[in-house]
């Protein structure tokens, strides 16, 4: 991590991309992931919805930290944006349950 702080404009751009992926992408991925779980979990709809909302911040925090821990930016971007678009895409196809 420390090496990335060297201050060149490329390093700054990469850090900006990483921060954007972590904060915005991480939020979208966490939201999509827990929403999909809430949509397909074989329990009461209201209960599944509340569990998903309650646990979402833990998922987001995990993604946020991992995005800064993993050194390969490409891997971070593919995993997080992939999870975000993948889960939201499936949800869009499924539509609301009720």
């Amino acid at each position, binding site marked *: *991590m*420390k090496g990335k702080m060297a201050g060149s404009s490329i390093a700054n751009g990469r850090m900006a991309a990483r921060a954007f992926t972590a*904060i915005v992408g991480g939020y979208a991925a966490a*939201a*999509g992931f*827990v*929403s*999909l779980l*809430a*949509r397909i979990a074989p329990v*009461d*709809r*209201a*209960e*599944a*919805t*509340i*569990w*998903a*909302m*309650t646990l*979402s*911040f*833990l998922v*987001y*925090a*995990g993604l*946020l*930290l991992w995005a*800064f*821990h*993993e*050194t390969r930016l490409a891997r971070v971007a593919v995993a997080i944006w992939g999870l975000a678009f993948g889960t939201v895409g499936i*949800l869009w196809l*499924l539509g*609301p*349950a*009720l």
Partner: protein
Amino acid sequence: MSKVASNEAPGVRQSMAWIHGWLGLLAGWILFAMFLTGTASYFRPEITRWMQPEIDLHPVAPATAADTAVAHLQKVAPTAEQWFITLPDARTTATRIFIRERPNPDPNAKPAPRRAELRLDPATGEEVTARDTRGGEHFYRFHFQLQIPHPWGRWLAGLCAMAMLAAIISGVITHKRIFVDFFTLRWSKGQRSWLDAHNVSAVIALPFHAMITYTGLITLVAMYMPWPIEANYKDPATFETAVFGAEPDGEATGLPAALTPVAPLIARASEEWGGGRPATMVVRNPNDATATITLFQSAKDRLNARGGSIVFSGVDGRRLSASPPPGPAAETSGVMLGLHMGSFAGPVLRWTYFLLGLAGTAMVGTGLMLWTVKRKRPGAEPFFGIRLAERLNVGAIACLPAGMAAFLLANRLLPATLPARGDVEVSIMFWTWFGLAALACVRPIRRAWTETLAIAAVAFVALPLVNALTTDRGFVRSFANGDWLFVAFDLAMLATGALLGFGAWRAAQISSHPARKPRAAARPANPLREAVDAR
């Protein structure tokens, strides 16, 4: 430690130390303000009562308060669309009522101005008037809205709370010697002391910090994370009905019908709740054939902050419906909410909450100090980022308490009839806070600490004095009358002043003995190692 780090390619402890430092710094100043005002908010009703010393009411039974409130509303708004009645309890002594007028059927008519919430003496039902103030509500609102227009303040507070959560997780991973740190506090050792103080304040209350941060996010979860609702329900109202029960929504028929007495309903609800008290009563279409009365259970005597509700007919008192019993998830999130608000806590637990909140404030504050102290090089002119961070530290840690004291002083010193008095009090807090912070920017950094801390200390110590001079509830008389709220308030202000004064004295000592500083700062510059391993 350095061996371990070189073996694991991107050491998880290293990356976590790095992210911990930056998250803590970027969100730290706002988090400090959120922690401090949130901690004060554990005494929200008490602060409000202190800020309206002319109100001195005595608690009555909920049924009596409900009866007097309904009698008052029958006089002033018998045909309103809804009455909201918040019943008093041991801490909030006034009944609060809010009237929603029936919308004018003429679509071209101007909508009636929103009526203000009124407060009543629960014993007589008479309106209580006092100086206009936001009271403890101001600190409470600022704590999660940051005085920024809706919804941006809440989003910013949420983002900072997420940073806090990630900082707690990464901080725990960073500190491998967490239990040793529990017992280690070395004074007067510069950077070492700030690190120890940060570790002690963080570790002692770690479960509290983790709990309060997570449950804080849960308080606004419906705003921050509504997507699971969207994924399951076409209409979010379906979800709300499933969880909280259906709200009665009958249109008024215009057929008059006398409103049923409310005291028996309160007794029946209390019985159904196993002795639980009602907190709020909503009367829809009063004095109409479709009238309903909904009672909401108080969170003051239970861990789950979301109590049940029961709907009664407003004509014959029949029980019409009730909220469904909560499932495990609803119960969990209700308990999380209750843990955050702490309304269930009695005096001892409430003070414990308060002290733990101060530990959290200290954790954020010492972390901010550590960030700047760690990056300073002896003899070298600190670069712009450090100088900025240093000034912002003064602005948050020393100037915010001064602003809070100014808010309370303004409450005593502004004329009671000043127009928009409550807003002026709030402005005075921010002018004092940011004004002092701006002043601190043009002073040498060590002096800035001493001066702003001393100003804050004097402002807090002045509060009991000003209170005694401007009200008839000064310390001596309060003590003689057994008015423990006012006694405790004065003592808390003196203690706060003493703490800030101690801070000012330490800052002055350090600036007059600069010889101490280099010893700590001259150690080999290895910031990564500092953060990764405390020794």
